[in-house]
């Protein structure tokens, strides 16, 4: 038997199974700073956060709850928010997802959407308030409100995209 080549129907390599989710979040976090877009308001949805939440909604047990620490730190380096904001908020979000996945035993699509929407809204609002501690609360929230709405409407798309990446991650040879 040929030991070197992959066998038919063998599970995907462990390396790929671990790297794909992390890589998608890291790239999505850094992507806005690679586009030649000088925005005058927060126009793009928080891509890194959306992928982070979608992976956890799709595969609750894939990551330990502390995965928000390194991934959040990476996002902080690129988002423009004070460093530590996403470390705190992303970890809090993954604890919330872990808790909710125990509460709601069989989650469906609408559960996922609702949980994701709630978490995106909370994370983006608190991040904006932490970024501008001296500004009026109402104005800061008004600034991120359009972005939150767009993100919530895009969540199903991101769930599907994450599903596609998950299929690639687990594809048998």
């Amino acid at each position, binding site marked *: 038997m040929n030991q070197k080549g992959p066998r038919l129907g063998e599970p995907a390599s462990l390396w790929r199974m671990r790297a794909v989710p992390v890589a998608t979040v890291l790239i999505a976090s*850094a992507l*806005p*700073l*690679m*586009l*030649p*877009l*000088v*925005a*005058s*308001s*927060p*126009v*793009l*949805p*928080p*891509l*890194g956060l959306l992928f982070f939440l979608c992976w956890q*909604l*799709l595969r*609750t*047990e894939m990551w*330990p*709850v*502390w995965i*928000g*620490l390194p991934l959040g*730190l990476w996002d902080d*380096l*690129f*988002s*423009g*928010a*004070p*460093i*530590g*904001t996403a*470390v*705190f908020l992303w*970890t*809090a979000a993954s*604890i919330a997802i*872990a808790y909710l*996945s*125990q509460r709601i*035993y*069989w*989650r*469906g699509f609408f559960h996922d959407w609702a949980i994701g929407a709630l978490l995106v809204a909370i994370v983006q609002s608190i991040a*904006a308030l*932490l*970024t*501008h*501690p*001296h*500004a009026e609360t109402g*104005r*800061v929230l008004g*600034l*991120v409100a359009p972005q939150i709405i767009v993100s919530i409407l895009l969540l199903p798309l991101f769930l599907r995209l994450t599903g596609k990446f998950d299929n690639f991650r687990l594809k048998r040879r």
Partner: protein
Amino acid sequence: MVRPAHRRPGQSRKAQYSLFVAYVIAVTGAVAGLLLAVLSVVDPVGFAALRVASHEVTAPIARASRSVIGSISGIDDAVSAYVGAGSQNRRLRKELAATRRQLVATSSLQEENRQLKTLLKLQEADKTAIANGYLLTSTSTSSKRIALLSIGRNLGVAAGQPVRGADGLIGRILGSGPSVSQVLLITDIDNIVPVRRARDGLPALAYGRGNGDLDIRTLNIANNPFKPGDILVTSGTGGLYPPNIPVAIVIRRQDDGALARPLADPAKVDAVSVLRPYTPDNAEALLKPDADAVPEVPKAP
């Protein structure tokens, strides 16, 4: 349908402990992250180096994508331009008529000014520019308005230097890396620019709104003297920004001042120049007609 999570680790002590430890790490790390965030709000300079270093990583890709696609001008701006096209047209016609009249009056003054300047042997050379570059990209997902400038310490860019485009003020340098630097745009909520009305020198402050517009507030709040169409320029008060750089045009009166739109749109501006900060010794050098230290203006890469 999502498979239910098997969070209960069963009888295995080892599995129970590892789950517990994961939660302990997560909660401790989250609290540490919150403290870090508060720290970096209090002391933004300390963490700027870390962030600039990460921007050095994405800058080559931003340069490449910019050269391929060109700059994507403000999407939100394009949408609102459609909505406000009718009223804008009417307003612009009115402005054009007024401007024509002014232009006639100004042209004679300009000629007189030129003659007086030649008499005084004042040179028009811009002595304040340090370097020229272009805006690569910006933080478009957060409420912070930071743009990335294509030049850094290699051309003498340092924190605290003002940045302007051809049309007006863009912002100031927040931090600089070896080959890129961060610009805090004047539209950021935390950025305040001391301005004065170009017409009569009425002093005011321009606060960023975070959505591309500026709030103009006068120092005396008794009356509201602003009219749509008023041009605001930097006053030079408090240092940093040199005087007489165009900043914004008033578009609407408000209860406590006015709403203004920056004259230089960072989304559309191509090249920007980094200026010397307006400190007392720099100001004197500016006023001196024959300052021997004329700084070289390097070309943008």
